[in-house]
């Protein structure tokens, strides 16, 4: 998948967890938890949602890569997802 398409998919997954977020305002490099007032459970639900939406297994050890959009995109692109 291309970066833009992936980003859109990630935002879609995010919205399933927190339907009220303003996607225009999300900064890729900043922590998602801080920007969007998500807690650790929301983050885990988000990453599991991404796993479901992209139909790819994300391993526990890679969990922390998803704390920002930048990190998530870098990870997913190297994994060729």
């Amino acid at each position: 998948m291309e970066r833009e398409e992936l980003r859109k998919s990630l935002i879609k997954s995010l919205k399933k967890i927190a339907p009220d977020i303003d996607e225009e305002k999300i900064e890729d490099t900043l922590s998602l938890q801080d920007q969007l007032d998500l807690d650790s459970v929301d983050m885990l639900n988000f990453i599991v949602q991404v796993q479901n939406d992209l139909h790819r297994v994300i391993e526990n050890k890679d969990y922390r890569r998803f704390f920002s959009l930048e990190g998530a995109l870098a990870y997913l692109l190297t994994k060729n997802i």
Partner: protein
Amino acid sequence: MMEFKMPSLGADMDAGTLIAWHVKPGQKVSRGDIIAEVETDKGIIEVEIWQVGSIAQLLVEPGQKIPVGTVLAYVRAPDEMQETEPSPAKAAIGAESSSPSILEGAIDHTAPQPLKIARASPLAKKTAEEYGIDLNVVHGSGPFGSIVKADLDSYLASKQNPPIHEAPIASTAPDKIASMRQAIAAAMSRSKREIPHYYLQTDVNLQKALAWLETSNQDRPLTERLLPAVLFMKAIALACQKVPEMNGHWIDGEFHPSSTVNLGVAISLRQGGLIAPAIHEVETKTLVELMRGMLDLVKRVRSGKLRSSEISDSSITLSNLGDQGVASVFGVIYPPQVALVGFGKIMSRPWAEQQWLGVAPIVSLCLSADHRVSDGHRGGIFMNHIARCLEEPERLQES
């Protein structure tokens, strides 16, 4: 004939709005089935029925605000059912030649099936687990109403276009938030008015617990990742077994201990407001089960789909504000409960233990307790037990 009444879904609820029925006249119901959706100050709650039988009559139309205790429907008990079954049984009685065994066969067939905990095929259960689907809300088309994989596929497809009455409360109108605020205000005021609170605080070194979690998580799939919060939950449940005065309800001047630990988990709502639905029987659950329960609960709180049994029967509450960055939480007890345990952020702090001095991940926990039921001494024993469990995390895995 049994009456199904508008339940009380909270200490200060006096009426609820019926949003939708999940059953029709003639439909068989079993314990734990969701019978209706009711809107309260806490959002839309899925109300479960605890009677077994079939729906005889629905008395109230959706959209009406109904006081607690009003009869909403009549439910026919299983042994009453043969009166309403059409001709086959009656015709059999009329016919001379019918043997008793035919009649019996007819009656057995119409009797409700005993409730099985997970009425789903192994493939369906596995799929449900993978996708985080709650089997309780899926309609089963398999034998005896059990859920097969195709049902999960239809369920997932239907979620793309949810019917109107399932609209998430993320888009709740300001007046709903205001009324939830009022309900919280009423409960918290009552708590401070009636409950003589005392507070005990202690710091716990989570070095061992976090290392243990990290190792444990390496071998788990993402969907079974354990967060520190489940260690806190299990530790509280085990401590409640040691000090039962922390787990139960104060009703009419008396403490009623709870036979099981139904742990209310304080969850904040994105649009404002707070709710603390229960995870039941925490003392019997494994860490993986607790994790699953907590994730599911948070998801449903966020989408406004809680069940009546979850919001009305917590026996003690956990308030975990670690993610918000606060060091300690001195919480307010939710009446009629008698205790609340608050956890703050896990922070790296200088720490000394016997001759060792270094930096460790420390969490501050605070007990708010009802002085009518317990004294500081017992509170201290309770806190100590939580601390010991968190310092020796293997204790939490047992059972």
